[in-house]
């Protein structure tokens, strides 16, 4: 042990390449980092074993992949007219789902920011609600709302809205915690009331971030609303599920193309809005 310690000391003194760490040059932290690296590699190895990670199996399975892809091509253009309606419905679900999420996330997010939350209890409660919303998959929410309000796109809107409020609210809370407190101090010092401080000092600082996150969430919600169609919450997801069950791979391919087209459009619109705001 002593030998090793001496050897390390000698290394620290004579090494021609030395680690420069963020805070203070401290040779010990270099070895601490090595420890962390070993720990992370162990976790990666453990997860690989747990999931049967194997390149050989994948190589052997390439035939299966090619088989399905070949059965999907060419996409079945004949079903296009029938699929337009559900596609538009999916867009409508994603729009109102996102708006509902934004409306829910604003009060929750404001309470979930330590620096402006009126009381620690409200802060903890709000964080708990947000965590719950994120922990429950959106399909489950959609299932619950299908049971509550019946089949169709409306439970889809509710499911999407509530589950994405969890993420938007958490990010809003985190964004508010990270703002520059200077302008907030300055406005407080003028005697402004809390809502005024939020409107004039907090909102302008987080607006660009919140808008681009909401737009990103809109895009995610579009994809999510294809999945929740599976439990009967309307939209193109229901069609996707049906064609999968009936092994209609060419129709499935067309649906995937439609989703790709819409995601691209949504992405383009988002980036235009984002540029305007920032």
């Amino acid at each position, binding site marked *: 042990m002593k030998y090793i310690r001496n050897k390390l000391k000698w290394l620290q003194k004579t090494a021609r390449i030395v680690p420069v760490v963020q805070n203070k040059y401290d040779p010990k932290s270099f070895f601490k980092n090595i420890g962390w690296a070993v720990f992370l590699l162990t976790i990666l190895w453990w997860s690989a074993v747990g999931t049967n990670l194997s390149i050989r199996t994948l190589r052997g399975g390439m035939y299966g992949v090619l088989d399905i892809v070949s059965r999907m091509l060419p996409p079945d253009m004949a079903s296009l007219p029938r699929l337009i309606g559900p596609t538009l419905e999916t867009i409508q679900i994603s729009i109102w789902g996102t708006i509902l999420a934004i409306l829910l996330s604003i009060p929750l997010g404001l309470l979930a920011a330590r620096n402006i939350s009126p009381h620690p209890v409200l802060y903890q409660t709000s964080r708990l609600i947000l965590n719950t919303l994120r922990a429950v998959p959106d399909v489950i929410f959609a299932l619950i709302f299908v049971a509550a309000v019946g089949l169709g796109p409306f439970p889809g809107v509710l499911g999407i809205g509530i589950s994405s409020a969890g993420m938007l609210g958490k990010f809003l809370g985190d964004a508010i915690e990270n703002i520059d407190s*200077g*302008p907030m*101090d*300055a*406005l*407080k*010092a*003028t*005697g*402004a*009331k809390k*809502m*005024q401080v939020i*409107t*004039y*000092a907090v909102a*302008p*600082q987080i*607006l*660009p971030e919140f808008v681009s996150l909401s737009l990103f969430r809109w895009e995610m919600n579009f994809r999510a609303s294809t999945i929740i169609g599976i439990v009967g919450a309307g939209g193109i997801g229901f069609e996707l599920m049906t064609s999968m069950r009936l092994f209609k791979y060419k129709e499935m391919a067309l649906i995937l193309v439609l989703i790709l087209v819409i995601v691209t459009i949504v992405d383009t619109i988002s980036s235009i809005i984002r540029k305007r705001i920032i």
Partner: protein
Amino acid sequence: MITIKELSKTFNRSVHALNGVNLEIEQGEFTIILGPSGAGKSTLLRCINGLERPTGGEVFFNGLSVLDAKNLRFIRQKTGMIFQQFNLVKRLNVLQNVLCGRLAYNGVLTTCLKLFPREDVDLALHCLERVGLSDKIYNRADQLSGGQMQRVGIARALAQRPDIILADEPVASLDPRSADQILDVLLEINRADNITILVSLHFVHLIKRYAKRIVGLHEGKIVLDKIGNDLDDGDINIIYGDKKEYEIY
């Protein structure tokens, strides 16, 4: 108008920023608080408008205790503050930033819809004229230079129609020329409007031109309090001790 009694502030139970400060400020005074960084200047100013809650002692504003939550909003309304980092809302324009000084005088509902009474807008424009920024009204705050930002900060404080302006190191982030301009504006406000002004500085060379009263702060205690603008070597030694940082400037 400001009475400070035995004021102390301790951070994290171990850092004594202020240690039994007694100070009396009269209406219309122009006082410079001088001291090395870490002497407690900011803390002292922030205790006057309640941004920092003292751990001991009392602060009175025209006889009203700052520690009493009931008085706080009124006292803040009548107290303008200017900061070293300006603390403007960068994504709002200059006029909106100045109007922030009027928030306390207006209701939550209208101001949150960005609606202000016409008199307030006229007052804000007048304040901007006084600090010489009439041509930048609709510029976004982050497009301005440091000196201009600080002048917006002053206009925001002026728009409050304050009885006192607290200036926390207002020129520490500025070049010497802008620094002179800012202090000139503050002096002019003090003379023309009879607004009490309390400026914290760690420069010595600006003192001679501006100070009417100098309060020296060292490690949370007042070590010098004199009327006039002459500091001799002895005074400087008392304030800065062996910290010769003033020589850098």
